[in-house]
């Protein structure tokens, strides 16, 4: 154990953790939205994220920015990122929608028990995973490093890079946008109505199927955006990339209180930070152990997660 290392690098571990956590949080939103409305864990969401990571590289390569290409100027890079967010958002959102149509809606129309949904979810996940695995020959796919991490400023001895700032701020901006959409708009109110009481929502004139499509698309788009940030940060993707990120994001959602949008943010950031501290103290190979031990401990004391559920029945 190396507490000295943790002490010496506390700030920089924190910032690295927040960066990773921001990506968890964006992916966690998809789990939390779907669970909040349907009480369903959409296991295929990890693959929705994975699709986004590939579409990002494809779009960049298509524009002449394949592996090894040198980055264009600042505006060029921002343009490429914006384009990738739109494309990956559309692809991931579209994939999520297809999963909903193919794997869940037919079951819903037949009032299937929730265990069947779970099996269908796992099936959809495996199908997407194997499909992309087959298409890519199970080879990783690289991409150019568009953003060279550059130290912008230093706080308490920690170097903060433009990349870290960019990732954290874009994740926060998207989360804030979603939060406003759900809490302040008419359509968002419809989503909350279906989450709280689907029958009464129908009595208010809310089209439940439309709301369900909407949450899958929204969750998918957030995962798509996260996939772009991930690509920029890691510079490499592969068909199995969704597995660990998916589990971590799901953990983040549960940690914050599944069904709660702000809980996803809190859970994501906390998970990112704590697992980084854990890696600092016990070594990298213990990172995931620390993450899940924290989940278990939190659930022991707060079974509904840190913030509880808010989209659904519970408190306002």
């Amino acid at each position, binding site marked *: 154990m190396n507490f000295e290392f943790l002490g010496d690098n506390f700030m920089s571990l924190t910032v690295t953790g927040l960066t990773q956590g921001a990506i968890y949080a964006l992916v966690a939103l998809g789990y939390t939205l779907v669970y909040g409305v349907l009480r369903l864990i959409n296991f295929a969401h990890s693959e929705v994220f994975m699709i986004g990571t590939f579409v990002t590289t494809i779009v960049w390569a298509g524009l002449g920015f394949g592996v090894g290409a040198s980055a264009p100027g600042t505006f060029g890079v921002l343009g490429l990122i914006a384009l990738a967010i739109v494309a990956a958002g559309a692809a991931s959102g579209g994939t999520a929608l297809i999963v909903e149509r193919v794997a869940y809606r037919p079951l819903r129309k037949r009032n299937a028990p929730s265990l069947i949904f779970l099996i269908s979810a796992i099936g959809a996940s495996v199908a997407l995973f194997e499909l992309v695995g087959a298409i890519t020959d199970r080879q990783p796919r690289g991409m150019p490093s568009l953003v060279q991490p550059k130290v912008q400023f230093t706080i308490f001895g920690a170097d903060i890079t433009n990349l870290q700032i960019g990732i954290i701020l874009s994740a926060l901006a998207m989360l804030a946008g979603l939060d406003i959409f759900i809490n302040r708009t008419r359509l968002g109110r419809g989503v*909350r109505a279906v989450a709280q009481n689907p029958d*009464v929502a129908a*009595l208010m*004139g809310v089209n439940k199927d439309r709301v369900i499509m909407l949450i899958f698309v929204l969750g998918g788009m957030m995962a798509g955006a996260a996939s772009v940030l991930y690509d920029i940060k890691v510079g490499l993707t592969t068909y199995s990339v969704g597995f660990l990120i998916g589990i971590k994001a799901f953990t983040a959602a549960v940690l914050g209180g599944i069904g709660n949008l702000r809980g996803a943010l809190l859970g994501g950031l906390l998970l990112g930070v704590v697992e980084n501290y854990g890696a600092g103290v016990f070594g990298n190979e213990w990172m995931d152990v620390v993450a899940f031990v924290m989940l278990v401990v939190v659930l022991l004391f707060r079974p509904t997660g840190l913030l509880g559920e808010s989209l659904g*029945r519970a408190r306002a």
Partner: protein
Amino acid sequence: MLLELDNVTVAYGRIEALHGISLTVGEGEIVALIGANGAGKSTTMRAISGLRPVGKGKIRFDGDDITKMRADLRVVRGVSQSPEGRGIFPGMTVRENLEMGAYTRKLRSEIDEDLQRAFDLFPRLKERERQAGGTLSGGEQQMLAVGRALMSRPKLLLLDEPSMGLAPMLIQQIFDIIVEINQQGTTVLLVEQNAQQALSRAHRAYVLETGRIVKEGTGTDLLTDPAVKDAYLGVA
């Protein structure tokens, strides 16, 4: 006829709860539906609003066959229900709950007018405007459910036990309000345990017994009907 049920059956799984009921509600009427627990009153309401699929038979509303229409589209056509158990959205404020009632409408100025009307009908709701629906008392939730059902400007208002859980004074008040709403032009179909009040306020009424309509007549007729008196009015 604004609403017409023609031999409607509804089942829960294999158990049939309505064995072919027929009833009509004319424009401008208050029609009451009374019956013992489990007779099928709420099931009838759910069939009309589209929450329960109809087995056999037809439901016609405002000239159209709506038997197979989705529940949310019936709201657009002018059917609004205050459900049994009130169905308040617990995590939304009183105001948001009312806004949900106007979900299908677009014109902000009209919605604001109707919000004002709901607050005029139920001043208590105005005082609690920002309170979460789930923290209201039972009676306050009942007012909110009725107020919310009015927010869609329905042609037909379905009220499932609007007086449930209200103090005696408030029961008088809620029936007064129902009559007032009706006089302002809304047709009302009313399910009630409180048969005395319901029959004395309704133009016409039906008596439901284990999924069948066994009697119908004007409110006053049924109030004086010995069998009805015996079974539902609690007088020997």
